[in-house]
């Protein structure tokens, strides 16, 4: 492979021979060095996240890396006017800071989703601006290679913008979180996607100096926006961890494609890191649900499968429990495992959970938390909420670590979780979630489930655990129930 040194004589000759409008060799070297430093800092920063005690410091390195990249870019000789840059930076920093300071931790999935939309918006607009500059202002041809990169950039970018906005709408409950389905949905989505690919190929292989090329380019952006909407609306709330990870990956790929277009390595590197991260997370999330990507994206979970599950529990009854009895069980338990789910996040009950756990520990019991990978609406959602409530992270155990310990636990306390403790995943091949790895809450000596009502969970699947004789249900809002439990355990 050629190195920069091998190329050096050629570079110098070329630099002399060409008539680029302005050459600022010193600045260019400074910029490239800044980008190199930024790339290294970003990678070191992410590496910090492999250890909880090093994570904060790592992220500070990454933030410095980002600052270095921005400062480097600001001395680019093509920038002649800083007014709009300053305005954008000030407004953006203000809005970003406000969002991060006042956003409650329960709203993290929404914030992440909308933030993906902002990142993708920036990448898409940079792509459009580049296309417009080359074709209209300079009146030049866009090379095939650049057009291919631009195409990737605006397609990934535009579908991530609207896809993330839809995900935001669902998480914020501005849109129904249940899947929105209609006839020929998959066929029409695939058709639209194929259309986008055809437009892309046409743009790459035709000359870019015609008006029709320009029209088609903007049409492709519109198709990308439409694909983003249509691909996310049929996906239900419980599948959001996969969707949000996938959108994370797409936002990264759009940034990387921007780097290909602009010939900018720090963009390529940062985008690739982001793309890899989102991709890995979406694979982990899919595995944790025992479903394939295609199944999540095109499977529109719901109606047809609910009936199958419901039949098997007909004639069985559940055992409600009073606050007093539940409190007594917890107060005298030696080992309690708490299984939090999305219901805890909705009720914002994490502080009450921590209070209850502390009380039990004060009485001599031991409390651990079992965290399923897809509990909540994004990867790691439960960990952040419990950390916010001051639960030390060594008490938050992953599925593989804790599953063997359920059989020793006196009580498994399930708070607003459903599918992740459904034994049908292990023993009912007809269940839509069959094969999904679950938390073995059913192996505990007794199980107490905090639940709002007997409505089946989001996926519409009945949960045999609730009908298990050793399982009792405490109905009501999780936060209210927990507050009552805390009061009772105190006096027990």
């Amino acid at each position, binding site marked *: 492979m*050629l190195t920069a040194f091998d*190329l050096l004589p050629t*570079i110098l*000759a*070329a630099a002399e021979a060409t008539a680029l409008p302005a050459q600022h060799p010193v600045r*260019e070297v400074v*910029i490239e060095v800044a980008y190199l430093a930024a790339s290294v800092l970003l990678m070191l920063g992410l590496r910090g*996240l*492999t250890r909880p*005690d090093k*994570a904060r410091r790592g992220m500070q390195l*990454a933030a410095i890396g*980002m600052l270095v990249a921005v400062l480097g*870019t600001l001395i*680019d000789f093509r920038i002649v006017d800083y007014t*709009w840059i300053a305005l*954008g*930076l000030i*407004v*953006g*920093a203000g809005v*970003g*800071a406000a*969002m*991060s300071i006042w956003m409650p931790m329960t709203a*993290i999935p929404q*914030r*992440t989703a909308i*933030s*993906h939309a*902002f*990142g993708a918006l*920036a990448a898409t*607009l*940079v792509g459009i*601006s580049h296309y417009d*500059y080359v074709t209209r202002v300079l009146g030049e041809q866009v090379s095939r290679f650049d057009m291919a990169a631009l195409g990737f950039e605006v397609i990934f970018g535009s579908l991530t913008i609207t896809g993330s906005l839809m995900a935001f709408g669902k998480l914020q409950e501005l849109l129904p979180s249940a899947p929105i389905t209609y006839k020929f949905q998959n066929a029409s989505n695939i058709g639209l996607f194929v259309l986008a690919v055809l437009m892309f190929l046409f743009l790459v292989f035709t000359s870019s100096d015609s008006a029709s090329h320009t029209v088609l380019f903007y049409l492709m952006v519109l198709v990308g926006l439409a694909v983003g909407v249509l691909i996310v609306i049929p996906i239900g709330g419980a599948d959001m961890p996969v969707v949000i990870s996938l959108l*994370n990956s797409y936002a*990264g790929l759009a940034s990387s494609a921007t780097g290909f277009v*602009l*010939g*900018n*390595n*720090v*963009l390529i590197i*940062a985008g*690739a*890191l*982001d*793309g*890899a*991260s989102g991709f890995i997370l979406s694979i982990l999330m899919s595995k944790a649900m025992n479903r394939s990507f295609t199944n999540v994206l095109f499977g529109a979970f719901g109606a047809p499968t609910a009936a199958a599950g419901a039949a098997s529990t007909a004639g069985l009854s559940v055992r409600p429990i009073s606050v007093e009895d539940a409190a007594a069980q917890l107060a005298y338990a030696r080992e309690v495992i708490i299984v939090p789910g999305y219901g805890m996040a909705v009720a914002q009950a994490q502080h009450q959970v921590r209070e209850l756990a502390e009380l039990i520990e004060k009485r001599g019991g031991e409390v651990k938390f079992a965290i399923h990978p897809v509990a909540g609406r994004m990867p*790691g*959602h439960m*960990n*952040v909420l419990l*950390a916010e409530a001051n639960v*030390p*992270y*060594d008490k938050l155990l992953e599925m593989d670590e804790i599953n063997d310990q359920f059989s020793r636990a006196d009580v498994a306390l399930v708070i607003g979780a459903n599918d992740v403790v459904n034994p049908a995943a292990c023993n009912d091949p007809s269940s839509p979630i069959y094969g999904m790895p679950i938390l073995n809450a059913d192996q505990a000596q007794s199980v107490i489930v905090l639940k709002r009502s007997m409505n089946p969970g989001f996926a519409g699947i009945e949960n045999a655990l609730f009908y298990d004789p050793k399982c009792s249900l405490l109905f009501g809002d999780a936060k209210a129930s927990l507050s009552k439990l805390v009061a009772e355990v105190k006096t027990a």
Partner: protein
Amino acid sequence: MTSLSSVFLLAAEGSSTSLTLPFLRFYVFVLAGFIGYQIITKVPALLHTPLMSATNAISGISLVGSLVAAGAQFSKFSTFLGLVAVTAATINVVGGFMITDRMLKMFKRQEPK
């Protein structure tokens, strides 16, 4: 096309290896993706939410491209798109890093009794 890379491009186009530059970019992309894979697979599930908000902040690197579009006065249209892009990317970067830090600050070990 920025700086040195444009010189690379010219150099590459001037020689018989006009594919060198695009391929260099693929090398960078593939190697960075590989490093990303190696690092991210070692991040514990405990930190997956901060990981996502961190990579989300990092994807705001498009800010670098937006700055040139907003400041170069290529055209009014470009400047406008650049302004919106700078704003959006900055929200992403500043908000992303700040909230990641806020989250990471909350993760504590159990205090020894």
